[in-house]
């Protein structure tokens, strides 16, 4: 009984996230992309003209909802703590690298789980790579990796991301001529704004409350044999699968003809190695960074900005994969990203104390 009390909320939260993702796909978002932090940040980068890939430009209301939902829940729980200053530029670069990996694979860890829930077996390779990347990251944690502690920051610092989110919402509703809106898939495939916004708010609030984190689940399982966060991860998969089946979204367990995916196993795997590795050093997956950025954590806000800029670079320089497969530039970028993340890991090992 106490086990249920202990783990009940994270399982419910995971299940709600999975179901909401299925509903969003059913209502217009691309299949197996009801939610994707990497893809949606990339779409936003395109919408404001940071890259000009015409198929991926849209201000995704889910992202706005996530930040504001997390802020609301943090305020209610008196957990809106404005902190920052923990190696911000390194976090920016790590966020950048995580995005390079995610756009190689075509999805953040959350979308990886949703792809599994849609039967996309390529995501199994992604999952293996993701776990490998996290494993490598935990070696660095055990060896004394630290980006140093954060410190209290001026109150205003904590409201920047929520205010940017509100600004994006205004731009989305007013649709001024200088904002780009894709007319082709996948950027043109979108659930109604109100539904997407509410979905983001609910998931943002739940994720803040439960600390739901794709990276944290596997990291805690490796470091402490603690499976609490991993339960949320599994619940998302089950709920997405069931939701897809009920709503009639396509579920075919195969490697081929999957929505917004390709089937080169090596690069699906390596892309997610980079995501897992970089995210462990950041302390959480892209979803978690977004939630923290709404909870007053300006270090996470910087990581998110790194991801947005990373996404812009990925499309400006042809690093991002497509349904046709990875690009040579993208392959080079992922290898460079792995070297950069390893170098950041090695440069921040601290053995002096203890």
């Amino acid at each position, binding site marked *: 009984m106490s086990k249920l009390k202990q783990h009940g909320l994270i399982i419910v939260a995971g299940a709600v996230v999975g179901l909401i993702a299925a509903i969003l796909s059913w209502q217009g978002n691309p299949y197996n992309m009801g939610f994707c932090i990497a893809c949606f940040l990339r779409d936003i980068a395109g919408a404001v003209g940071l890259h000009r890939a015409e198929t991926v430009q849209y201000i995704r209301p889910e992202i706005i909802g996530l930040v504001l939902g997390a802020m609301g829940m*943090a305020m209610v*729980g008196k*957990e809106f*703590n404005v902190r920052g200053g*923990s190696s911000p530029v390194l976090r920016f670069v790590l966020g950048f690298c995580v995005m390079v990996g995610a756009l190689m694979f075509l999805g953040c860890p959350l979308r990886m789980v949703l792809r599994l829930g849609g039967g996309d077996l390529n995501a199994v390779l992604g999952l293996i790579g993701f776990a490998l990347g996290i494993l490598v990251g935990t070696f660095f*944690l*055990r060896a*004394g*990796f*630290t*980006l*140093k*502690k*954060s*410190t*209290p920051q001026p109150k205003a610092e904590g409201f920047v991301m929520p205010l940017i989110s509100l600004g994006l919402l205004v731009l989305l509703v007013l649709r001024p001529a200088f904002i780009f809106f894709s007319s082709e898939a996948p950027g043109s495939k979108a659930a109604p704004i109100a539904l997407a916004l509410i979905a983001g708010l609910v998931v943002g609030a739940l994720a*803040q409350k*439960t*600390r739901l*984190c794709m990276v*944290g689940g596997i990291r*805690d399982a490796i*470091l*402490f044999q*603690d499976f*609490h*966060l991993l339960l949320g991860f599994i619940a998302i998969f089950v709920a997405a699968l069931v939701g897809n089946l009920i709503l009639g979204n396509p579920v075919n367990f195969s490697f081929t003809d999957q929505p917004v995916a390709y089937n080169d196993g090596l690069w699906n795997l390596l892309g997610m190695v980079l995501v897992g590795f970089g995210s462990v050093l950041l*302390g*959480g997956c892209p979803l*978690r960074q977004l939630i923290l950025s709404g*909870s007053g954590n300006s270090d996470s806000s910087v990581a998110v900005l790194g991801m947005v800029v990373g996404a812009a670079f990925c499309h400006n320089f042809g690093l991002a994969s497509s349904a046709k497969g990875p690009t040579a530039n993208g392959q080079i970028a992922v290898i460079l990203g792995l070297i950069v993340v390893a170098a950041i890991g090695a440069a921040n090992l*601290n053995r002096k*104390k*203890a």
Partner: protein
Amino acid sequence: MEQIATFHTHFGALTFQKKLRALGDSAAMMPVPRALSASCGTCVKFGMDFDPAMADEDLDAVYAVEGSGKYRLLFQNEEE
């Protein structure tokens, strides 16, 4: 008395655990309980009496574990 120390960094927890183990305590690292923090960091559960001299800048707070998910604040580290 069972106590839990929370930290600003994973490294802080690692260092604290090592320090206490060297003193003969069976200190163990684990994910910080949700009731104590909204962060998903690492805490250390330990038994020996806490002395503020054990704290370094990475330590956030120390709580006494009072059974069935109840905690009592023993020490809150100061920040500049």
